[in-house]
């Protein structure tokens, strides 16, 4: 799993840095950062990515709307999406997965757990 390209969508610089820090365990990976859903959609037009990791609660456009729009776009509809959020209730999880997210992780995140989830998704896709 070398040279993977991730899009990290998160309004909190602390979380963006922490997630990027974890993702750097994938050798030669490239990380594109976006601060909200709109910014993420712009980045998707210009950048090729292999996976999206997004928060839910963000200004301008939230993560659920982003998941929905990514799934509607023929170019991006197959992209694996992981939701990383403070919303830990079962109904939030169900909603995120129903919209098309491949996995749902509640904060605070454990780096090892995040890497395992990514690994499982990539294995399934292959």
């Amino acid at each position: 799993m070398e040279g993977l390209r991730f899009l990290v969508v998160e309004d909190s610089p602390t979380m963006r840095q922490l997630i990027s820090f974890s993702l750097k365990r994938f050798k030669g990976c490239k990380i594109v950062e976006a601060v909200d859903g709109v910014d993420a959609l712009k980045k998707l037009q210009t950048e090729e990515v292999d996976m999206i990791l997004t928060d839910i609660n963000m200004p301008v456009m939230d993560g659920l709307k982003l998941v929905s729009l990514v799934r509607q776009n023929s170019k991006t509809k197959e992209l694996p999406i992981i939701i990383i959020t403070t919303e830990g209730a079962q109904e939030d999880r169900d909603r995120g997965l129903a919209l098309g997210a491949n996995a749902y992780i509640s904060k605070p995140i454990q780096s090892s757990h995040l890497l395992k989830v990514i690994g499982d998704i990539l294995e399934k896709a292959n």
Partner: protein
Amino acid sequence: MVEDHSDIFKKSQEFLQMLSKQKDFIQGLLKENERLRYELVALRPRHGDADSLFQQEIDLLKKRVDQLEREKRELAENYQKVEEENKDFVQRYIEIEEQNNNLANLYVASYQLHSTLDFQEVVHIVMEIIINLIGAEVFCIMLLDEKTNELGVIAHEGHDADVTFAPVRIGEGVLGTVAKTGEPYYINQADSSYKVDFLHPIAAIPLKIKENVIGAICIQKLLVQKDAFTAVDYELFSLLAAHAATAIFSSKLYSQSERRLTTIQGFLDLLTAPATKG
């Protein structure tokens, strides 16, 4: 009559021939019998040898079985040892992964806290750390007013937006005691009967610069998916107690000095401006 005699003679001849053949056959049988008896006698000692060889072979095989059993036991013991070592390695790997995760959290928190000198931004970063890294849902950040000796809330999360927090005097209640002693207060996780109460938090961490308490972080509730504080949370509390305090204090000083500089600059501009002629 003559014919009858010749017939009897012929028959007697045939009978004699038959007897002679039988005699030969019986003699043959006797010879064969004798030969077999000799062979049997000759075979008897050889059979004894085979028994002893067979016994030797069994003994050898028994020894071999014993040896293999011993080797099997040794291999099983070695396998168990390796398995135990493997379990230790797995456990160690998990611990290292956890430490790695904790260090990443501490590094990121520390990095972010000192990334700006803007007071509001620092407060926002402290809140982000409490939400995202500790997993608190309801909390507030308080600063000490040195003139009134009271703790006042400067930022909060999870409380009603229009709520007003009464100032807390040093030494009074849980929060006042934390501010006075400089010792953190934890009840780890509240039981099911716990109701969110500003004055009775589940954790209160003093913000300290050396021994001077400048404020406190009070956590009233954790996120629904978080049951209790973990080891890294206590590390983060220690980090916040020191680093958040210095970051908040220095950014506050910086803001004040910026304001004073602007004021002084204004005066200087006024003094050095060329007088306008009326």
